[in-house]
C-alpha cells in the first residue's frame, strides 16, 4: 500500500459526497460513516489500482453502494416473512416526510434514486455502480419514484426535475 498525497486529495473531494449518498441510502448516520470509512480504507489499500483508474469516483460509489446494500440485506427477510425490517429515519430529520418516504423504498430502489437524483449520475454510470443492467436501473428508478410520488403526493417532482438520461 502506497497512498500518497493523491489519496488525501481524493478524500478531500469525494469523502463528504460519498458519505452523504450512503446516508441517504442507509438512513442512518453511523452506518453511513462506517461504510464511507470502509470504502476509503479499501481505496487506500488498493491505491496502486485506484489511483490509475479513469473514474475512481465511480469505483468509490460502487464500493459504497455495495457495502450499503450488504448492510440492508436483512430487508430480504421482509419478502419471505412479510415483516417490515427497515431503518427508522432520524428523529430530528430536516425533512422527515422525505426521510420517511425514502426508507419505505427497497434498498436497491433507494440506491438507484440516490445515484440518479442526488449524485446526478447517468443511467449507464448508475448501472455500473449498482452492478446492474441499465434496464434494471430504469425499472428500479421508476418503481422508486412511483412509490415516492404515492407517499409524498402529486407535484413534488416536476417534469424538469428529471435527471440526465
Amino acid at each position, binding site marked *: 500500500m502506497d497512498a500518497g498525497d493523491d489519496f488525501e486529495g481524493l478524500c478531500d473531494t469525494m469523502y463528504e459526497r460519498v458519505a452523504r449518498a450512503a446516508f441517504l441510502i442507509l438512513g442512518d448516520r453511523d452506518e453511513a460513516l462506517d461504510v464511507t470509512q470502509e470504502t476509503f480504507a479499501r481505496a*487506500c489499500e488498493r491505491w496502486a489500482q485506484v489511483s490509475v483508474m479513469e473514474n475512481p469516483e465511480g469505483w468509490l460509489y460502487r464500493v459504497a453502494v455495495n457495502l450499503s446494500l450488504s448492510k440492508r440485506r436483512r430487508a430480504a427477510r421482509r419478502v419471505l416473512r412479510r415483516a417490515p425490517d427497515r431503518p427508522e429515519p432520524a428523529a430530528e430529520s*430536516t425533512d422527515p416526510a422525505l*426521510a420517511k418516504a425514502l426508507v419505505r423504498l427497497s434498498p436497491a430502489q433507494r440506491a438507484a434514486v440516490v445515484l440518479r437524483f*442526488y449524485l446526478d449520475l447517468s443511467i449507464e454510470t448508475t448501472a455500473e455502480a*449498482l452492478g446492474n443492467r441499465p434496464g434494471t436501473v430504469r425499472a428500479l428508478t421508476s418503481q422508486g419514484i412511483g412509490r415516492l410520488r404515492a407517499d409524498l403526493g402529486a407535484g413534488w417532482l416536476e417534469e424538469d*426535475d428529471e435527471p440526465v438520461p
Partner: protein
Amino acid sequence: MNRFHDRLEHLAADADVLRPDVDALRDRARRRTIRRRAGSVVAAAVVALAFVLPLNALLGAVDYRVSRSAADESSRQLSPGLPSAPLRFGSAWSPDIAPFGTAQDSLAEAESDLGYKLYTPDTTAASDASLIHAWVGTEDPGGEDMLPTEPQATVALAYSSGIQVTYVPWVYGVKVPAFSQGSAAESYKIAASQDDSYSTATVAGVPVLLTAYDKQAGPGSVAFNLGSSNEDAQTIAVIGKLSAPELEDVARSIIQQWSADHPDAA
C-alpha cells in the same frame, strides 16, 4: 440542479460529515492488509471448511430425502474440509419444488430486494424467457464466530427445461482466509477423493464440483463459488436431470456474466 436534488441535498446534510481523518483511514487500510495476509497462512483444513460448509448448507437445503433437523445434525458432524454425508439431491427432487422457504416472487422483485446482483443464465436451456419460478428465502446466521451475523437472502430459479439454479450467499467463520478459487478447487478435490459420486472440473476458468445425474440417486449438479471476497461470495448450483455438458453450459453462462463484471478477479 433541480428541486428534488436540492431536497435530497438538504436531507443529506443531516449526515453532518466531518473532515475525514486521513491517517485513521490509512491505519484502517493497513489493518485490513494485515488481516488479509494473516488469513492466508491459516491451515488448509480451515480453508477447505470455508468452502465445503456453504456448499453443504446449499445442497442440504435441497435434499428432500432428509428432514431439516437431520440436515442440521449432519452439518454439525462435519469434519474440517470434508462433507460428512453424501451431497446428493435424491430421486424425489423436482425443479418445481421450492428449496428455500415458500415466498415466490417475480425475478424483478427478487432482484430489487436482494442486495446483491443475480447472474441469471442465458442459454437455450435456461434464460429469463424460460423462467417459471423465482423463490426467495433466507439462510440463517451461522452462529458464534460466524459472519455475517444477519440472515442472508437465498434465491432459487426454475426453468421450463427442468433446470433449477440456486444462489446462497456465504456464511463463513470470522477467522477464515480471504476467498480464492484456488482454495475452492482444493476443497472440491478433497470432496471428490472421499466420494465417488463427485468429480471436479473447471468451467470458464472457475473450479466446479460435479454430481452426475443418476435415476436412483437424483439429478446432476454443477456447484461453484463466485466472489471477490468472503463478503460478496456466493455458492451457486445448477441442478437438473440432464447431462453434465448441458448443466455446465448453464453454469458457464452464469460465470461468464460474472467475469465480465469483475475483470480484475483472478
